[in-house]
């Protein structure tokens, strides 16, 4: 562990301490926590008595989730008409919510897989929760396309199974690829997440105080003993799954974007969509990870594991992806102008951009959805720019506020793309407006309840931080680590610490100390 090694090694006389402070990176786990502390801390969250705040959070979330389910029961039993959709706006909040949630569902797997492959060691303390968040977001996302169809009981037609009519699916339809892409993504994400959980489940099993817990954790721990051979196989499996997941992170949102990009609707029919959507998904996903992590870190006392360094890194990613998204927004607008296609121009200028405060620039009537467009612009493009400032990145309140903006902004982005494009497309005679009903509202807000409920249950029953992986990045996991106070023969040679911990060549102790 290079960084920590330097810091924990006795200061060499030849180094100026000030210079050392400047060139070193902050440690991944602060306060010199050891393996035992990590185990106690993370397992303790699961083992402790349920705190009051958990109930205070869980109860309203569960009620909201119930509303969501009730809303969907009503929808299915009565007809899609209970939502506000119409002709021309045949898709509205349903697909907006789908794309919103599926976008959020990108951060977890990105953190787990891509950052794993790129040896970003800081990922270890957040990947478990982020992955769980991914799964729950994908579950929320899946509700909408699954349940928005007119005849749910016929939705199995989407599955390529043999039937008496010998009708196959339409493999030209991006909607079908969507089903496959989201299905694959969810399956692989679940497996990846579960495989990562196995050593920690074994820890909980071994620490279990009653037989029910022991049985339940034991069942899912698959007989993990932490043996060398098990670690070898485990790490191979994890690596392979990370390899499989990585392209999926990119493919899912690319394919979701095809729903729009391959259509002919002005405002949808845009070649920039795949990279733009992926960037947007990472953007929104990181914002949601932070939205959950900042309170959790505080409430569960995880400041030593989820450090300010994590927040800082994620804020930088938000700044980067937010700027990419902003570039995409402006590029879309530029291309609409550059193409000189009146329909494209109308979709951007007259449906979205033209607002009361742009009169000086465009002398056209206000766009019917200007408020949505400008909400998106200010939340997604303008608000993250504050992260250029290191002080802003260090202020958790600011970070949290920006993340909330981004969450809202990303929802508006999907709303703007979907609704404003189809509301006013080719034939002015068929133009319309969309207004949501109360069922739209509860099926949307209810999905947050569902998401939070699942996340709170996860926090309560599963180790929300990957103990074994965090231990792997502790200084103590470095084979050349010398605890402070010990003599460090040849320490200087290894102080650059290129032998990293993320490959976890050292089996971390699986059982509690």
């Amino acid at each position, binding site marked *: 562990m290079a960084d920590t090694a330097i810091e924990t090694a006795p200061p060499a006389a030849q180094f100026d301490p000030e210079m050392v402070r400047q060139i070193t990176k902050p440690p991944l786990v602060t306060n010199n926590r050891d393996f035992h502390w990590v185990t106690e801390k993370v397992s303790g969250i699961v083992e402790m008595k349920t705190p009051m705040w958990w109930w205070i959070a869980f109860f309203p979330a569960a009620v909201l989730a119930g509303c969501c389910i009730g809303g969907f029961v009503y929808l299915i039993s009565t007809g899609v008409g209970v939502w*506000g959709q119409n002709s021309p706006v045949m*898709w509205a909040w349903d697909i907006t919510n789908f794309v919103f949630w599926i976008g959020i569902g990108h951060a977890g797997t990105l953190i787990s897989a891509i950052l794993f492959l790129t040896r970003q060691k800081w990922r270890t303390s957040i990947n478990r929760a982020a992955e769980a968040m991914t799964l729950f977001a994908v579950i929320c996302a899946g509700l909408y396309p699954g349940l928005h169809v007119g005849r749910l009981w016929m939705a199995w037609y989407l599955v390529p199974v043999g039937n008496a009519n010998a009708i196959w699916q339409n493999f*030209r339809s991006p909607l079908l690829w969507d089903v496959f892409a989201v299905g694959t993504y969810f399956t692989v994400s679940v497996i990846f997440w579960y495989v990562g959980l196995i050593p920690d489940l074994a820890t909980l099993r071994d620490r279990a105080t009653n037989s029910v817990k022991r049985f339940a954790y034991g069942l899912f721990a698959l007989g993990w003993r932490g043996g060398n051979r098990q670690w070898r196989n485990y790490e191979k499996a994890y690596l392979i799954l990370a390899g499989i997941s990585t392209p999926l992170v990119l493919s899912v949102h690319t394919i979701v974007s095809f729903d729009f990009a391959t259509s002919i609707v002005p405002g949808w029919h845009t070649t920039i969509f795949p990279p733009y959507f992926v960037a947007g998904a990472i953007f929104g996903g990181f914002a949601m990870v932070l939205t959950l992590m900042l309170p959790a870190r505080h409430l569960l006392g995880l400041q030593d594991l989820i450090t300010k360094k994590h927040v800082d890194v994620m804020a930088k990613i938000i700044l980067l992806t937010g700027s990419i998204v902003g570039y995409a927004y402006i590029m879309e607008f530029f291309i609409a102008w550059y193409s000189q296609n009146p329909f494209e121009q109308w979709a951007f200028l007259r449906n979205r951009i033209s607002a009361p405060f742009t009169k000086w620039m465009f002398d056209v009537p206000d766009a019917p959805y200007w408020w949505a467009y400008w909400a998106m612009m200010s939340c997604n493009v303008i608000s993250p720019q504050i992260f250029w400032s290191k002080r802003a990145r260090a202020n958790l309140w600011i970070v949290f506020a920006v993340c909330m903006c981004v969450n809202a902004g990303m929802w508006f982005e999907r709303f703007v793309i979907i609704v404003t494009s189809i509301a006013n497309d*080719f034939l002015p005679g068929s133009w319309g407006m969309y207004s949501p009903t109360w069922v739209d509202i509860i099926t949307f807000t209810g999905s947050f309840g569902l998401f939070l409920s699942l996340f709170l249950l996860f926090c309560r029953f599963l180790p929300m931080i990957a103990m074994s992986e965090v231990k792997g990045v502790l200084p103590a996991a470095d084979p050349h680590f010398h605890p402070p106070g010990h003599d460090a023969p040849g320490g200087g040679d290894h102080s650059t610490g290129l032998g990293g911990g993320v490959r976890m060549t050292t089996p971390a102790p699986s059982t509690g100390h």
Partner: protein
Amino acid sequence: MKHVFQHPPETPSPTGRKYWRTMGELNDTPEFRGWLEREFPSGIDEMETDALSRRSFLQLMGGSLALAGLGMSGCRRPEAFLVPFTKSAEWLIPGEHLLYATSMPRRGGAMPLLVTTTDGRPIKNEGNPLHPASNGGTDTFAQASILELYDPERSRTFLLDGQTSDAATFADWVTKLRAEATADGGASLAILTGESGSPTRERIRGMLQQQFPKMTWCVYEPLSNDNEREAMKAAFGSAAMKMVPKFAKADVIVSLDSDFLCVEESDLAAVRDFSSRRRVAAPTDSMNRLYAVENRFTVTGGMADHRLRCPASQVGAVALALAKAVADATISGPLTDLLSAVPATEINKLEKSLPWINEAAKDLVANRGKSLVMVGPNQPAWVHALGFAINGALGSYGPTLTAVAAPAPDGVSLASLAERMKSGAVKTLFVFGGNPSYNAPADLNWPELQKKVAAVARIGSYDDETSTGAKWHVPAAHYLEAWGDDRSSDGTYVAVQPMILPLHGGVSELEVLAGLAGREKIEGPALIQETFKTIAKNVSDDALAWNNFLRDGFLANSAAGEASATFNPAGAKSFVQTNFKSPPVPTADAMEFVMTPDYSVWDGRYTNNGWLQELADPVTKLTWDNAALMSKATATKLGLKWKEDDIRDGKGTGVTGDWIEVVVGDRKVKAAVLVDPGHVDHSVSLSLGYGREKVGRIGRDAGFNAYPLRTTATPYFVSNAKVSKVAGEAYIFSTTQHHYNMEGRALVRELPIGTYREHAGFDHEGRSFVQKFGMDSHIPPSVSIYKHPPMTGQHQWGMAIDLSTCTGCSACVIACQSENNIPIVGKHQVRRGRIMQWIRMDRYYSTMADKEDDEDPQVMMQPVTCHHCENAPCETVCPVNATVHNEEGLNVMAYNRCIGTRYCANNCPYKVRRFNYFDYNSRPLDQLYLGPLAKKGVAETVKLSKNPNVTVRMRGVMEKCTFCVQRIEEAKIGQLRVARDSNNTKVPTDSFKTACQQVCPSEAIVFGDIADPESKVTKLKKRDLNYTMLDYLNVQPRVSYLARVRNPNPKMPGAETVGMSTLKDSHGH
């Protein structure tokens, strides 16, 4: 189906033993006898009630069978109950339609129809192609009358003082009444009925008049041609005729508030003749030119080349100015003389409009003998007299206007009937059809008047306002349920024959009148046959002639002859002199209030018809309501607010308007305002027929009643109306179109005929001038990078729509609804943007770019249906292959494969796909949001109205125009039968039509095989006016449009803007 089961008589056994099959038989109780005799067990009568669904019918039958089995098991085979026809009805081939000729009685002349029946139930009306008054076309009202037949809310029971009674009691009452009436010569008897040309009714009236010479016979129609008749009597000396314009011969037409393209005001032949002169096939073709003077946009005004916005009360002044100009130019003595009857100041009253009027007059005079002036029926009689005089000066009588003998409705006016009622002379009043309590002039105070009559017998289709307080309410038979006869608009004797027995035991007007005249109950057509014999003279075989009459639907060569009409200038002059009135020019403080016919419900008679209620008004696009129409300037001046896209959660998006109150004297009307482009200032138009108080669910809470301001003296417009804003939450209207501007997109393409002549033909690339409008002028031709599946079918279906002749009347919309079992969705769902109609009529207003706020726009109509794109964007996106292309070029929907992702509708550039957001076909429209708690199922009668060849769609399914695929298949199967083993399977050229094409009175929609070089559609598509909408998308639509050619008068003020709306966007290419 009625048969009594015969059991073999018991033969006494030689042993003396009695053999019995059941205990019942042994005891031989009367109950058992009953079981034996009756085909259906007792209690089956419950079947007659409406709540009986098919399921409960089966339950009941099952239960009855079980009981029957208990009673006498093994007596007979139960299948006897389950087979509907033991003997097939004559000519009936299962699965095939039968067509019967009949006609729909209408005020201006019956409309000859061919009714499609299937398994004994009429399901679709078509025009009778043999009859010139129809030639195969019909209109919205004729199409929608099928729905009225099956309306579950039609009156079903005889009501005596509000209590259920029956036909026999009513017949007894009539018999008793006869005795009383005979005693006083009928002095206490009055009959109020509507206009009808039925010779049989006339014959029975004669019989009644003989028996009850003092009887009062009154004919009343809220919207009538009385003013014209009155003027005709003065100007020609006879009202027993009518003026028939020959539009095919007229080059210049001036319409003075005449909406002659609305079928109810004239006939289909007029629309067809007019259209024939709007159709341009070649640059050498001539076109007629239409000038319209009106206060609001009508269908006719929309077709006009030049339109003058003018208050309805000032149309007379326009007529005077026009007459003056014509008189000066033609040096017409009689006309000049006639004008001396009115003050000279009146003639030049409308100074601002004089240049317009003078140019129109010049055009009329320049085309003497080929021109025509039409005066609308809502104009006062003196304007009609003036119109006759102008036509006389123009030499129209003969070349463009002929008088045809037509008996004038004979009877006293409603006012004099009211007098008699008031005096107490009338003891018994029969009210046939009409609804005077709702639509009689307000000054008569009819509901009170009716209370003065001891016994009112009301024969009507609905238990409505007039039935309230009536002694008798008798359910009237629908015209498709009863025998009758009538005359069409050209006077031809036409048959009205029933297609089905009265569903609810209704009786026809003729039956009741005949009963009153002392005739025994008449079975079948006997009454009509008697009349027929008197009309069809010189026939060798009565039975054969009668059969031919029924087969053809009319009696050949029975049209009325030309009446000898000589214009009498002196009569006209004195008439104008006595009747001339000069209503003040409306101002902001004293506006005019105009009561207009409604395109959906006419005068209120169709208020309970869901198809018509949901049919968007051709001009305002308003459904389920009427509205106080006024110009933007007037609305602004009144301080009113309106919004075109008002979003209110839970109520959807609508056009909203504030409330106004119109006060005239001590009468007032409250209504919400809809701003109507093209409406004249200081004028408020409210159509009649809405705001009904006692009506079925469909008509309830719909619109505002204009009748309270309608008096005997001012039936069509009132001056000096005080209009003011009243407080109240803005009313939300349900319109089908919110955006009126085409935004320069060259969707409807129009051009003046001069420009067309200049640019006719095709360029070296094979593109015509019209094909290069707007964006298409400067983009390269579309090239597809994909290989598309070949269309290998023998037939390739396509459609061409001529925008020059389409008036926007919307008959196609209803025809499609009737043919394809399209549900109505209700006012709230229309507002939510969920209307289901497969063909819609887009309406755009155009103003020149430099006059954005122009209050005098031109209007453009465009029917839009599924374009059946060869390169269909909907097909590629459907994940389950529910919408695919067939080899004949149809974009077909597999309803049972559709899961309802709605992606196809999003990707459809023409937005023609319709989604079943709810179970519109099987849930009541006011319970859609109750889900499974809502009542399931529809009335039995509504099920009868469905076309069995078209699937009834469930919720969650996408649907759209199929090009009437059922008709295509029917034609192909028919040809296969002809072809037998040969390869001659090609359907003969243009041998069948789609529903929208068949109904179109102006023949604007042409469908056919584009692979057949001989077909009409192929020829149309080759014209240089042919273009496709959104060509740049390269979706290769099979529907194309023929650009609208207009014929402006270059000298007219504003002529440079006519027909230029899309031309201006073509950047001069």
